[in-house]
């Protein structure tokens, strides 16, 4: 029987390999309910599966970059139109100190704006949910504010706050704020009604209801909001740098464009993507640490799978 099931698994489950559903037949039936495996099993098979993914990703990248390089050389594309990857890499290496400084500035603006958005967003969401009377005032105001294109008000912010980092942080904050409020409010309101009944039958205070039921229920949605918000925050910071200033990767792209230094612009864009991926991965990592009880959806980055 054991051999038989082994053959069946080898034959039928081969295609599902990367998801590693594992040897659940060996588990105590009681723990295998709903097809959920104990963490130990998930971890046991994880390295090979994640290695598999990394390998696939690396191969794809090598093929893509390789063909790009080959096409550029073969067709002799001028570097100011499309630089070859080698040229981009060379520029990145030559001016590494410059890039480091500008990248750091953009990370700083993005992170500051994002954190402000998280702080104010969660507080606003809490107000909307906990004080229904304020909902009718706060929600339409936020919606109107959201409908104003941030790109359009960026020049105004520069007039008001000058050319330093502050207006960039403000723009990053403004674009990142909305998804956190919306997700936060919907999360805080998503408590199971039976839990609220249980709370009131025990005469729980509003404070207890909020912290023991609403906040934990909201965390998964707040994290979804934060993942959207962080990618928006980068866009916000870049918009700010485009409009005015003398630092940051956005500024670097504008300068590169003016000088037709396309390799420089490509390098800056590459760094921007890396910053975005790293920040996103950090949030997935925090999600894993803070809410391990949330049924893990397939994480998109390594950050979510590190643990």
């Amino acid at each position: 029987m054991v051999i038989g099931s082994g053959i069946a698994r080898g034959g039928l489950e081969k295609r599902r390999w990367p998801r590693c559903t594992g040897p659940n037949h060996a588990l105590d039936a009681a723990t295998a309910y709903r097809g959920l495996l104990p963490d130990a099993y998930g971890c046991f098979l994880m390295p090979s599966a994640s290695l598999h993914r990394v390998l696939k990703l690396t191969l794809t990248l090598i093929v893509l970059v390789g063909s790009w390089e080959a096409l550029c050389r073969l067709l002799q594309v001028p570097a100011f139109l499309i630089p070859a990857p080698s040229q981009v890499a060379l520029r990145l290496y030559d001016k590494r100190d410059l890039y480091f400084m500008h990248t750091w500035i953009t990370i700083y603006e993005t992170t500051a704006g994002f954190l402000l958005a998280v702080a104010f967003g969660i507080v606003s969401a809490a107000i909307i949910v906990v004080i229904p009377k304020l909902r009718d005032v706060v929600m339409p105001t936020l919606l109107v504010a959201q409908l104003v294109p941030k790109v359009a008000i960026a020049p105004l912010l520069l007039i008001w706050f000058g050319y330093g980092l502050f207006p960039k942080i403000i723009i990053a904050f403004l674009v990142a704020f909305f998804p956190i409020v919306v997700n936060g409010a919907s999360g805080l309101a998503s408590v199971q009604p039976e839990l609220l009944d249980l709370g009131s039958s025990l005469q729980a205070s509003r404070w207890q209801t909020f912290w023991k039921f609403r906040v934990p229920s909201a965390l998964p949605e707040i994290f979804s909001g934060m993942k959207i918000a962080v990618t928006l925050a980068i866009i916000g910071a870049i918009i700010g740098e485009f409009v005015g200033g003398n630092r940051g990767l956005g500024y670097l792209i504008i300068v590169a464009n003016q000088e037709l230094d396309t390799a420089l612009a490509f390098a800056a864009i590459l760094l921007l993507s890396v910053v975005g991926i790293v920040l996103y991965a950090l949030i997935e990592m925090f999600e894993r640490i803070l809410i391990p009880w949330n049924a893990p959806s397939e994480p998109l980055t390594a950050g979510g799978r590190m643990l």
Partner: protein
Amino acid sequence: MRAPAPAIKIADLRKTYATADCEIPALDGLSFRIEPGEFVSLLGPSGCGKTTVLRIVAGLTAKTGGIVEVDGVPVTGPQRKIGLVFQVPALMKWRTALENVLLPAEILGLDRAASRGRAHELLDLVGLSEFASRYPRELSGGMQQRVAIARALAHDPAILLLDEPFSALDMMTRNQLNIELLRIWSERRKTSLLVTHSIPEAIFLSDRIVVLGPRPARILEVVTVSLPRPRDPSIRVSLSFMQVVDRIGRLVGLEYI
């Protein structure tokens, strides 16, 4: 000397739901009482207002008219001497089984060490002592509902209100949990009110069954189950059991014969 007050007294209970243009009657003058330590079931067709009765006793829904008293005191709002079990387990998925059972003690600010000991004891009572540190998603539906029962007993309430606690479970699990609930009740002797639409479940567990008709709910009959206690699971296939099933089935109008 006065006789001791009933655990739950319901007299001429009325409830109407007001919509924009009319009033929909849900409960039309119900009267019954539950003595301390008694197990009573509310049985009736779906949507007849059984759950409304339970919520009014729990103080979660306001009544329109009549008298509802718990331990001789009129119900005006939620009260802590009641333990609640819902149709869904309603566990906090961010807490382990043990932490879920500890919730009432936390809200009521009871002594931590003592509540922990009690929570372990209750998990043992519902047969889940090995699963204390498991999260709800690692437990089956039946196990989750057992945790919910343990949680309902955590603050040692005098009264247990169960709102169709097993109706979301499959038949085998449901039968199993009926046996478990009977055992738990025998050990703790909490005054219990069970809302159900399963006739065998009501008979197996109850001392008396309040049979309700379709909405607006009126009491068709209060059936006393004279099957002796302690009850063995095998009683459910005995002739005397079947006779009660038959009698209640005719009451609620099941045309199965």
